[in-house]
């Protein structure tokens, strides 16, 4: 009996239940299953990174270094950074939501290279295992930035193995980016021209560009560092004729665009959330699409703004500062366009929308404070203070993670066929918002007043800020744990969702929830612009007629 479009019965075959052996999951070529494999992996690393955050915030409640030694604290903030950036943020949206949704949004059966896709997950797991080994054997204490000569000569921690781990994990990123680019170029359904694509796809294309062009440079940098540390080749060691700042150039050439890898997919999610939850076409669609590309391209031209306080020349610094101001413009364009989309829209304040609106505010704060740091003179004062820490947490947590949570909730019914409990969704979104601001806003203030980053002991004047921050962190932790609980709960007890519980536009909503392995049982043909909500009704009726005809 053919499954109904609007409601799936438990007995219908979908990508989750078509096979149930462990082997069928570990050897799957289905992009949707690979997305879920990534979901489990990055959730684990997020929890691990969170444990280190807890240790940090616990230590910082008191001005003295009393919870742990200085060396231990160095390891705590290094592991927090390395795990969160390389093993959670960079994969998060692309590897989970991107993998799951991209082929569906394109009307395709899978990505261009399904085996490469599976391989990229295994490569990620191997890199992650090596990082776990690093962790168990004491972790690293160099800061996530690995600057030599400390990392190459003086550090007594597992720098080489950590470097190899990141080298390997980088390939996971490269393969994902490659897959996405080829899929978007060659596997769009008939009628799906570039300007009919959802903005989520544009965002992931731009992200894939960065993954492909930037990641190889961090690979060679980390390889060179490993050689420097083990064989003293001399390219980063001043005593051997090398320049430590060369490492910083090579490191930041990737690591700055990497932050756009983290934010662009989140912006893509926000475009989908706002359009579909206000039932309006995204204002200035073309501008938003091109802004994604502009951010990807310009993001490669600003890396020196991390090096204003090094021996980098002042003139180069001025160029980097100017372009850093320019790169803020496309992001600002997007914020304006999203805001204009909401205006006079039919807004529903479901959990995903709450996250999307939170994104608008928090990313704006994060982005604007980035401009403070892009000013050469001000950066001399603010570099290596908590102001920087607050800035990047506002964009990475308030921006990227908020977008990730919003997307996870929004597409949860599509991925699992179940609705999460809406009340709990809204409550935890509020808790995350409150906890987040309480944690990180005080850090702006104390950073401006001079509190250095990566310090475990500080002058008593800063304690009040640290206490506020740690209190906020405990609230934020609750807000992060809650979704884990109720999302898992919903798998068994959640209300069954139909194909399109949000009455949203987009190809992914025109197939059952959860989808069959091949995504569509028909060849989608696109004849209309994206975010056209009048069509949703028509399509619903047409599909129903088709399904009845098939039966």
């Amino acid at each position: 009996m053919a499954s109904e479009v609007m409601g799936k019965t438990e007995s219908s075959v979908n990508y989750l239940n078509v096979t149930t052996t462990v082997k069928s999951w570990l050897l799957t070529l289905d992009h949707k299953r690979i997305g879920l494999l990534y979901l489990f992996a990055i959730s684990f690393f997020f929890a691990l990174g969170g444990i280190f955050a807890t240790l940090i915030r616990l230590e910082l409640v008191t001005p003295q270094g009393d919870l742990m030694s200085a060396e231990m604290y160095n390891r705590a903030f290094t592991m927090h950074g390395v795990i969160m950036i390389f093993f959670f943020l960079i994969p998060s949206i692309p590897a989970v939501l991107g993998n799951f949704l991209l082929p569906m949004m394109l009307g395709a059966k899978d990505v261009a290279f399904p085996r490469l896709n599976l391989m990229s997950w295994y490569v990620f797991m191997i890199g992650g295992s090596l990082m776990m080994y690093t962790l168990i054997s004491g972790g690293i204490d160099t800061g996530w930035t690995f600057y030599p000569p400390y990392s190459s000569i003086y550090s007594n921690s597992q720098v080489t193995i950590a470097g190899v781990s990141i080298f390997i994990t980088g390939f996971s990123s490269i393969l994902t980016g490659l897959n996405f680019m080829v899929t978007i170029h060659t596997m769009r359904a008939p009628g799906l021209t570039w300007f009919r694509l959802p903005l989520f796809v544009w965002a992931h294309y731009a992200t894939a560009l960065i993954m492909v062009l930037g990641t190889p440079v961090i690979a060679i940098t980390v390889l060179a560092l490993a050689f420097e540390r083990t064989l003293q080749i001399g390219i980063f060691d001043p005593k051997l004729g090398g320049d430590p700042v060369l490492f910083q150039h090579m490191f930041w050439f990737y690591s700055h665009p990497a932050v756009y890898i983290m934010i662009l997919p989140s912006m893509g999610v926000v475009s989908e959330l706002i359009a579909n939850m206000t039932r309006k076409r995204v204002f200035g669609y073309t501008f938003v699409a091109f802004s994604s590309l502009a951010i990807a391209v310009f993001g490669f031209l600003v890396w020196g703004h991390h090096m204003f306080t090094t021996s980098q020349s002042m003139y180069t610094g001025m160029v980097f500062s100017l372009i850093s101001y320019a790169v803020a413009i496309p992001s600002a364009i997007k914020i304006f366009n999203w805001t204009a989309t909401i205006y006079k829209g039919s807004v529903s304040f479901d959990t995903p929308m709450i996250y999307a609106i939170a994104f608008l505010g928090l990313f704006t704060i994060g982005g604007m404070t980035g401009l403070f740091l892009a000013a050469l003179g001000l950066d001399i004062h603010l570099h290596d203070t908590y102001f920087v820490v607050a800035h990047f947490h506002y964009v990475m947590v308030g921006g990227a993670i908020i977008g990730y949570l919003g997307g996870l909730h929004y597409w949860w019914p599509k991925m699992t066929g179940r609705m999460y409990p809406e009340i709990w969704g809204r409550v935890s979104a509020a808790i995350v918002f409150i906890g987040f601001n309480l944690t990180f806003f005080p850090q702006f203030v104390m950073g401006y007043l001079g509190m250095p980053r990566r310090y475990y002991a500080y002058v008593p004047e800063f304690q009040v800020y640290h206490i506020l921050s740690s209190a906020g962190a405990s609230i934020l932790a609750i807000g992060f744990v809650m979704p884990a609980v109720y999302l898992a709960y919903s798998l068994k007890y959640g209300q069954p969702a139909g194909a399109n519980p949000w009455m949203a536009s987009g190809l992914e909503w025109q197939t059952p929830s959860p989808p069959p392995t091949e995504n569509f049982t028909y060849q989608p043909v696109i004849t209309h612009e994206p975010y056209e909500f009048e069509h949703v009704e028509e399509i619903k009726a047409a599909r129903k007629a088709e399904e009845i005809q098939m039966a």
Partner: protein
Amino acid sequence: MADHSHEHPANPIKYYVGVFLLLMVFTALTVYIAKFDLEHYWGPLNVIVALTIAVIKATAVVLIFMHVRWSSRLTQVIVVSGVFWLFILLAFTMSDYWSRGGWPTRLGQ
């Protein structure tokens, strides 16, 4: 979508042999020129000549052996952007060193 803006030639062998000969000649040329101390006249001259010859050789390989001359616009854009991005890495980093003052004397002095 597939877009073969130029058709492959019916008989590419003459192109391949032509490029092969070009590569051999330019290899001999670059070895020959390297025997001369052009740096005596102008510092970067050796490197500029050597790189120019290398770029000509590489271009021939890309256009003919790798068929980029007859490939889609997308392929051509990919090739150009690869070169361009490498250029960004080199140019911006070099701009730092060149504008520090005192380079290329020994670093840090």
